């Protein structure tokens, strides 16, 4: 045991918290080291001094002053809800954290529902043109299979000029159309 180790366990030695082996090592070192012996005796004496140091007492006016303050102070009213959940856990959390979490989850769900696209959206309704000119592509005419869904059929509004997308669709449809006419011609 060296001096640093002895200094680390001086309090444990004084308070009888060491194993017999450690006590023997401590004794052996302190008997041969004047410095550590001095430190040990100093700490021992300090503890005695502190424990026997004079104690102060409160002044004579203490109780009357306290009484006055208590009379003036308004007793803090206890929140009945927080008192109800005192000492209890909700979903493994303290009540306040549990409630905050629940509110946060509910808020997120509402936000997500609000962001989902719906058909009942009035802004979409207004953007649907009243008159639609269907542009049919491919070999089949609209009268051939009136009830069948044709993925090649592009419905492009001629009246809707606000949307960039719609304009792009228009251009794309026209060029596709021209290309297909060329193909038909070539085949013929």
């Amino acid at each position, binding site marked *: 045991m060296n001096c640093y180790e002895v200094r680390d*366990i001086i309090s444990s030695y004084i308070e009888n918290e060491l194993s017999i082996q450690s006590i023997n090592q401590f004794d052996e070192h302190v008997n041969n080291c004047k410095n550590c012996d001095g430190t040990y005796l*100093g700490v021992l004496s*300090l503890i005695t*001094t502190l424990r026997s140091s004079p*104690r*102060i007492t*409160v002044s004579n006016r*203490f109780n009357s002053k306290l009484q006055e303050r*208590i009379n003036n102070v308004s007793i803090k009213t206890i929140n009945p809800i927080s008192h109800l959940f005192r000492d209890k856990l909700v979903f493994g959390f303290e009540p306040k954290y549990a409630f905050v979490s629940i509110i946060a989850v509910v808020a997120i769900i509402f936000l997500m529902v609000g962001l989902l696209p719906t058909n009942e959206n009035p802004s979409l309704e207004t953007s649907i043109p009243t008159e639609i000119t269907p542009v049919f592509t491919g070999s089949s005419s609209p009268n051939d299979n009136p009830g069948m869904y044709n993925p090649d059929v592009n419905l492009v509004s001629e009246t809707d000029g606000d949307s960039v997308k719609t304009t792009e669709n228009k251009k794309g449809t026209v060029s596709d159309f021209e290309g297909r006419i060329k193909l038909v011609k070539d085949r013929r």
Partner: protein
Amino acid sequence: MIDKHKYSDEELIYRFQQGDEVAYIELVNRYRNRLINFVYRYIGDRNDAEDIVQDTLVKLYTHKHFYRNIAKFSTWIYTIASNLAKTELRKRKRRKVTVLSKMGGEDREFDPASEITADEFAEGRHTEREIQNAIQSLPLHFRTAVILRDIQELSYEEISNILDVPLGTVKSRINRARLQLQEELKHVKQKGRKRI
């Protein structure tokens, strides 16, 4: 009338929570001097210490329902006093008020002072002042730990609960605080020996 030795602190606070104000008075009588010694050693000013003890006991009165019977009452009340004392020190630091030593004033009340001679009394006060100065020079976390252990004589477990730090940390802080105090007070003892 409450029999002083009949009830434990925990029983008294329970009775007070049920509305028995006599139990509160008994708790005040039990703790006022213990608390003032703790706070006085901690902040080094008697008047401020008394104010803090008053605040602590008012808080006990107004927040009685906040005590839960999972810890010792002494742990709870010391924690309140310790937090208020810390706040006071923080306020002082902010105000940058240099508190000169107000010790040795006329209104000091020592318990054992009546039967010692003037010389002994002067020597005792001198040593006392040196001890207080040495305690004040300790870092806060060492100071609290050593006061609670060596002046208030609380157990390591109680100190660990009050400071909310592990037992090992408490032991280490107390040991280091004692070593530092012993270094600070070495010259005082040497002076004392020379006199003898």
